[in-house]
């Protein structure tokens, strides 16, 4: 028994007028090649010049689209039915309405031809691809860990215009992973630092700086003028904001995120696949997922994930290869393992589904449960005040709620180490009559410790504002900062 192939009407004249053929093949690719080999006229209608299946040719094995299976590697066996199903597309030549008509591609100078020679000799790029890169406008949200490698590679590759949204200043702790910046630019705005580095790398690139936080008020206006957005944000409100703005404007969002030793990347493009909300409809509760500053990150990791983002951005510009649309790549640095998850578009998605309920940008801080935090007025103490009070009453108990490996980096003399996770079970070690001050690295975890202690009935508890970092700056400069 062979595989049954159903031929649609437009192709029947190429197979002797038949609507069904019987073929022997192990997978869809072999089957199509056999079909095109035996019926010469079919080939140009099924395959584009580059050998890929034309976009409007859909192949189903039994009832499933091979795009959802293993594409051309989808196995077929005797008894299977393979259907070639047309999708029909067309339209008028000129864009009507709001969309920009595509301007002619820019020319390349002699300097650019030399600079990009290794691209130009690649058949998938060539002169036309390089011109597309030059004409492209890519927006980077964030010039940090992910934005650094993305900016460097996009600039080196000759992306004509790179927009960068960042309001931060280069800090020494950034340099372990944010390779766009350097020791000489510590203390200066990241935008200035990025601009100088990019211009040194490739003076042909135009940098459009946006020295602001991306907000619901400005996001649409900023993103509107770009072709592709690469999201290098480190927080959930901005990530949902970037996603929703991209869906509303019909732009692809090249996503990356990192945590400690693991990273993720995907391309969210609602016109062709799922968006970030199809994957994560709700943000995690605030505080559950620590940021890099709280949780730490291996410096090379954003280099890998940010480079994937740059690669996907370039593929989208060139229209080359298989974009990461509808797929989520998970990278585990410790195992050095890439895994891939298939993502489906959620028809119930509130922003890109069939009946969207989000049709304009919302308050993303509120959506992510941020801003509703209780007030800690009076519950915090500054480093200087703690020093003075501790000197007056040595009975004061200072609890360090950080992890032991952080304690090893630096610790406040006289503080007792009880990591936050152990605190609820070690309350018995504490004397409720003493004044207690909790401290951590920057002052966030110690507030959680404060809440745990208050809930357990300890009334005289305060938290060190700014954590051991503030202590190192204002009280004990002999301590290293980290």
């Amino acid at each position: 028994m062979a595989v049954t192939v159903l031929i649609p009407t437009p192709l029947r004249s190429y197979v002797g007028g038949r609507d069904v053929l019987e073929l022997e093949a192990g997978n869809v690719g072999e089957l199509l090649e056999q079909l095109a080999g035996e019926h010469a006229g079919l080939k140009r209608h099924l395959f584009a010049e580059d050998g890929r299946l034309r976009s409007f040719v859909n192949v189903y094995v039994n009832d499933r689209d091979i795009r959802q299976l293993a594409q051309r590697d989808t196995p077929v066996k005797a008894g299977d039915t393979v259907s070639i199903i047309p999708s029909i597309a067309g339209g008028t030549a000129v864009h009507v309405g709001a969309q920009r008509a595509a301007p002619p591609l820019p020319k390349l100078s002699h300097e650019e031809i030399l600079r990009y020679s290794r691209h130009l000799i690649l058949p998938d790029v060539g002169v036309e691809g390089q011109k597309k890169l030059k004409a492209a406008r890519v927006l980077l949200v964030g010039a940090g860990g992910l934005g650094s490698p993305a900016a460097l590679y996009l600039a080196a590759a000759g992306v004509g215009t790179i927009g960068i949204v960042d309001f931060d200043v280069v800090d020494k702790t950034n340099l372990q992973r944010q390779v766009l910046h350097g020791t000489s630019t510590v203390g200066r705005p990241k935008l200035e630092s990025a601009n100088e580095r990019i211009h040194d790398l490739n003076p042909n690139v135009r940098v459009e700086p946006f020295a602001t936080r991306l907000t619901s008020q400005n996001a649409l206006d900023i993103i509107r003028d770009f072709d592709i957005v690469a999201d290098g944000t480190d927080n959930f409100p901005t990530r949902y904001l970037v996603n929703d703005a991209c869906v509303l404007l019909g732009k692809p969002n090249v996503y990356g995120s990192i945590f400690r030793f693991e990273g993720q990347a995907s391309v969210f493009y609602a016109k062709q696949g799922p968006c970030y909300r199809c994957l994560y409809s709700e943000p995690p509760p605030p505080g559950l997922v620590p940021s890099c500053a709280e949780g730490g990150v291996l410096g090379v990791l954003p280099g890998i994930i940010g480079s994937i983002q740059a690669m996907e951005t370039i593929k989208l510009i060139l229209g080359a290869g298989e974009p990461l649309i509808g797929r989520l790549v998970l990278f585990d640095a410790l195992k050095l393992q890439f895994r891939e998850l298939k993502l489906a578009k959620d028809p119930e998605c509130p922003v890109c589904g069939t009946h969207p309920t989000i049709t304009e940008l919302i308050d993303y801080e509120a959506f992510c449960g941020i801003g509703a935090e209780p007030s800690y007025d009076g519950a915090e103490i500054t480093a200087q005040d703690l020093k003075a009070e501790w000197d007056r009453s040595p009975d004061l108990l200072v609890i360090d709620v950080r992890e032991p490996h952080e304690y090893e980096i630096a610790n406040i003399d006289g503080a007792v180490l009880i990591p936050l996770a152990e605190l609820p079970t070690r309350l018995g070690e504490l004397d409720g009559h003493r004044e207690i001050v909790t401290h951590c690295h920057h002052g966030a975890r110690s507030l959680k410790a404060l809440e745990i202690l208050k809930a357990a009935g300890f009334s005289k508890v305060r938290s060190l504002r700014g954590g051991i970092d503030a202590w190192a700056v204002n009280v004990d400069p002999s301590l290293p900062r980290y």
Partner: protein
Amino acid sequence: MTLVLDPRQLTAIRHHGEADYPAEACGLIGGAVEGDRKVALQLVPLANQRTDSARNRYLIDPMSFRRAQERLDRDGLEVIGVYHSHPDHPPAPSAFDREHAWPWLSYVIVGVGAGRAGDPKSWVLADDRGTFAEESITIEERKAVWQSPY
């Protein structure tokens, strides 16, 4: 080949184009081949799946095509063509139409200028995919045609 349409079908294609203006309207043409005549017997109006830029693009996705094909098959008919409208553009195929075209099918295009439909024209893709050739439309009143909602 010539495409044979009933005057009521011609009217239905024009009305569909006007009803969906300024978006592009689209549908399939079911029928049968009789010698060198492609005879239209049933129009299948479909929803344009290109909601993002429906003013200048149309799409009939594979699932819609498959469902329509199965329905026609039950009546002993096959897909012989496609119709779509060009809002504020002449009824001639664009380069985009040609790049995405299937051979053999009749591509009936109706220009809709400022909401008023003109006379449709039919086109067939050349074998080398390089050009679209205009195909004659023969208007013939038949005793019965499947009624389109338009």
